[in-house]
């Protein structure tokens, strides 16, 4: 590792440095992905721009819509009282990222920009229809998270652009979320498969109004299982319907075999975890079906 080190003290300064160095620069947040990739020689930026002195990006704003500053840590998400109810999957996703040492420094923004298909918080954000806001020399732009993730380690972020925030709306009444992760052990483990789900029921709590199902580690990017979502919307959520959604999700995912698991096993996990996550949402909403 050999680079010049910079410590911008304000958002504007970070953006100016980002623009100046372009592809040759990298922002450093918690460093839990970046420093390791640099040490392994996978990336070799000539300029490292540490963000730890940039104020204001580590805030969670929860009045109306929710805004997570890019530097909010997983530990802060895990402990945020606003995420105890219907948004509980955020806590479930954040609290399985590494151990305390990782979660104390690793950020949600880093999880998003690193764009690993196995990221744990990204699938939860996708079920919330989150958007990401990037700031560059030409100003700010806001994109849907789904379109932002373009491939393994690849995003629509332009060279030098700073991710500033991730936003999503609060959920309507009769909604719940759930996150489940399968790894080879319970902690400190990259997901073999992870699944996030969000359900909104009608006021009578009988039929599904809206469903989101997202899958991690089974495609080049975290993906939405759209066929499975469509199979739920408008229907009463019986166990059979939830199992059907699991089968559809297993069919539409595109896993590979690697050191952690075979493609076949990953599909089996999807088929099992999707209905389990949906049942959990259904229980959390309560009543009906």
């Amino acid at each position: 590792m050999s680079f010049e080190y910079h410590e911008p003290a304000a958002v504007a300064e970070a953006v100016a440095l980002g623009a100046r160095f372009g592809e040759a620069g990298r922002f450093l947040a918690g460093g839990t992905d970046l420093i390791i990739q640099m040490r392994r020689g996978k990336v070799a930026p000539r300029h490292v721009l540490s963000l730890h002195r940039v104020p204001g990006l580590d805030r969670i704003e929860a009045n109306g819509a929710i805004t997570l500053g890019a530097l909010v840590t997983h530990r802060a998400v895990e402990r945020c009282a606003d995420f105890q109810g219907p948004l509980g999957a955020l806590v479930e996703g954040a609290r399985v990222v590494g151990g305390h040492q990782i979660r104390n420094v690793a950020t949600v923004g880093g999880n998003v920009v690193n764009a690993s298909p196995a990221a744990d918080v990204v699938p939860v954000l996708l079920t919330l229809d989150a958007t990401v806001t990037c700031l560059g020399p030409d100003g700010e732009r806001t994109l849907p998270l789904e379109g932002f993730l373009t491939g393994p380690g690849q995003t629509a972020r332009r060279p030098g652009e700073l991710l500033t925030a991730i936003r999503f709306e609060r959920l309507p009444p009769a909604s719940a979320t759930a996150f489940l992760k399968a790894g080879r052990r319970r902690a400190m483990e990259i997901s073999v498969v992870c699944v996030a789900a969000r359900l909104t029921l009608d006021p009578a709590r009988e039929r599904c109004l809206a469903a989101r199902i997202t899958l991690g580690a089974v495609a080049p990017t975290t993906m939405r299982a759209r066929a499975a979502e469509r199979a739920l919307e408008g229907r009463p959520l019986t166990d059979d319907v939830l199992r059907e959604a699991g089968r559809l999700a297993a069919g539409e995912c595109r896993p590979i075999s690697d050191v952690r698991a075979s493609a076949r096993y990953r599909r089996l996990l999807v088929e099992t975890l999707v209905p389990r996550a949906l049942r959990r949402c259904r229980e959390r909403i309560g009543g009906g079906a």
Partner: protein
Amino acid sequence: MSRLALSLRINGETHEVLTAPHRTLLDVLRDDLGLTGTKENCLEAECGVCTVLLDGRAVNACILLAAQCAGREVVTIEGLARGAELHPLQRAFVEHGAVQCGYCIPGMLLAAKAYLDEDGAPTEDGIREALAGNLCRCTGYQKIADAVLAAAAALRGSRAGGGGCTHP
């Protein structure tokens, strides 16, 4: 190559160091300052032997640039005891036989300290979760969990007694 002049606060003392930007806090602690109580092993934030406290929170010194620590408070294992008086966690580890080869112990102690500072009345599950980022190849973890539980009780006792625990 460029060098950075850093002012580092470690165990309450200020150290001025001149270092290359890529060097980690772990490099500086062990190689420049001779504070070898912080151990070095995987260098990928997996094993926890390099755990130190940064502004009170447990972090892996192996993936933290020294430059990122300037002006912040670092506590290493050398700063845990007060002179000759062991921290209650250290005493509990000794009393419960929670130390075998000892290699993982500095990191275990600091991760446990950060956790007890947050949650003074932990459960065993909570302790195991808090120490999930610290590997031990010797003890099987049970005695470590027992020791942390006992230390938590001892700390609660000393606080209740108005002893005013003022460890860093």
